[in-house]
């Protein structure tokens, strides 16, 4: 029965204009979140072993400072959301934050990461450092290719995650070419892209968050990370066709 309702809800959700990350404050239009590219290895592991290990590889924007930082940053929120939505699956999310690493340096570390963490899925957040330093776009794309191929060869699924939308620094850093290349690489490897840039811009446009705020507002940062964590959970569940309890309530 649960399966039938879940399937029905999934169909409805595809038809509806907006859904996903639960509270209305940070809902995301489905075209921004879902791509149709699948996470087959995640699906297989969850079905077979009832467990899921996710590694989040990222730079500074994958972490929050302060004593609350580790548990309010999006990797921890992703873990909480996955556990909440799939209570009978053993979920573990390992954050591996390497501040100031460009894509190339991160790509080189993928082999070691596979050995150390044995992830079923790697969420690879990158692009910001490369764009800020205006590194070679071709080199950036080659690094993405290299990293994704290494992860696939090592038996892990990959989600690419692009930059944050930061309205105040928009004129100072040209994210466009880097974001475009991430989209291209994701499309060519048929892996999901978590379009953080587009999603946060959407939240800003509809007034969900005031991303123009200048002050030391930890609450805002924590709420944004919570929404990002839950949105990635929705993307994983959708792309791996997992059953989640959330949909049982007819959300």
């Amino acid at each position, binding site marked *: 029965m649960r399966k039938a309702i879940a399937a029905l809800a999934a169909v409805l959700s595809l038809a509806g204009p907006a859904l996903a990350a639960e509270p209305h404050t940070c809902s995301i239009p489905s075209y921004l979140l879902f791509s149709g590219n699948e996470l087959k290895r995640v699906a297989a592991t969850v079905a077979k072993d009832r467990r899921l290990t996710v590694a989040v590889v990222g730079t500074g924007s994958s972490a929050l400072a302060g004593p609350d930082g580790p548990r309010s940053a999006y990797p921890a929120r992703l873990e909480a959301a996955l556990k909440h939505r799939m209570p009978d699956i053993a979920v573990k999310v390992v954050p591996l934050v390497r501040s*100031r690493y460009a894509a190339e340096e991160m790509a080189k570390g993928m082999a070691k990461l596979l050995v150390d963490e044995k992830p079923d899925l790697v969420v690879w957040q990158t692009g910001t450092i490369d764009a800020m330093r205006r590194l070679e776009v071709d080199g950036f794309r080659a690094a993405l290719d290299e990293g994704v191929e290494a992860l696939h060869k090592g038996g892990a699924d990959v989600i690419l995650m692009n930059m944050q939308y930061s309205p105040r620094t928009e004129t100072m850093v040209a994210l466009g070419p880097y974001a475009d290349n991430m989209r291209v690489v994701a499309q060519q490897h048929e892996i999901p892209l978590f379009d953080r840039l587009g999603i946060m811009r959407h939240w800003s446009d509809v007034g969900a968050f005031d991303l123009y705020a200048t002050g030391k507002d930890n609450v805002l940062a924590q709420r944004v990370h919570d929404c990002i964590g839950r949105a990635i959970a929705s993307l994983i569940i959708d792309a791996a066709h997992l059953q989640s309890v959330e949909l049982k309530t007819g959300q």
Partner: protein
Amino acid sequence: MHAPVTTTGRDLRLDLFRGLALWLIFLDHIPSNLVAWITIRNYGFSDATEIFVFVSGYTAAFVYGKEMRERGFVVAGARVLKRTWQIYVAHVFLFAIYLAEISYVATSFENPLYSEEMGLLDFLKQPDVTIIQALLLKFKPANMDVLPLYIILLLMFPPILWLLQFRSTLALGASVLLYVLTWEFGWNMPSYPSGHWYFNPFAWQLLFVFGAWCALGGAQRLSAVLQSRVTLAIAIAYLVFSFVFALTWHLPGVSQYVPHWLDEAINPVDKVNLDVLRFAHFIALAVVTVWFVPRDWPALKSRWAWPLIVCGQHSLEIFCLGVFLSFAAHFAMVEVSGAFWMQFLASLLGILIMIAAAGLITWYKKVEERSPGSRPKKAPDADLAGGEA
């Protein structure tokens, strides 16, 4: 304000489309600007940069080529270098504005969500290095890449112009060869702190030299090709193909209908090295434009075309103003509101200011010419030429 447009021998279509390119560059430089959806970069491979570079090459050859024929290589070459210097000064001026903006942001922005993005401001900690690198054209902030390209293109221009006058096919051939070798060997100019120029001058020179070649008789040689319906049909077909392909960038749903091999062959379209797809897209646009907008098109002299033409005739001033205005528009969107009405207002006001400034410059130049004691002008278009190649 409706100043008469200078027409002596000058093809007003060039000014019209350079003016249009300047407006589009301004709109594209305002971040998160919904109005920028109207600009051509969203509907095909090429964008306003191609128009700007081509028309700049064309007008430079038109103006300095005449000079070179009448007064010799040295005088014309010296005037090209004087123009290069003006553009360099303009670039440094824009950099000063950028420094002011980023310093302001650095002192007022503490949002913990963006601690990583604040790394952008690190270069302020070592101004001794950064400012010198900026003066050497190696450190170039975002959106400030066009003028350094223009500087290099003009710096190389005197010998190219000389060759174009006497052996035009050879000059164009050399340009194509440099473009091919650049692609083959990956040549580019170094940037600070790392990487290379965003507009690779060794690749983009092709469009500039091609524009110059067209101005010096190349367009006439191509006229049979340009007037053929077959050419027009090919150009339109390519524009349509490019448009459909561009849709896949904006509507991810469309991309599933694009064959994988085609996607792999085309994406990403390289702007740094002027991808040949971009070059072809510009040529197709030019073919269609030349077909439908004849040189003596009456509308070119109408009051509706005047705002574009007058902006195109003062391209350096208006380009710099546009970069400044895009900073200002972003500032207003950050400080007041980023809502659509603000984006629309900032875009509209910015273009009105560009038109007003261009009109003012035209008026000012006319007044200067008329003032007693000023030297009589040598040729009717020398002023325009000197200022606006």
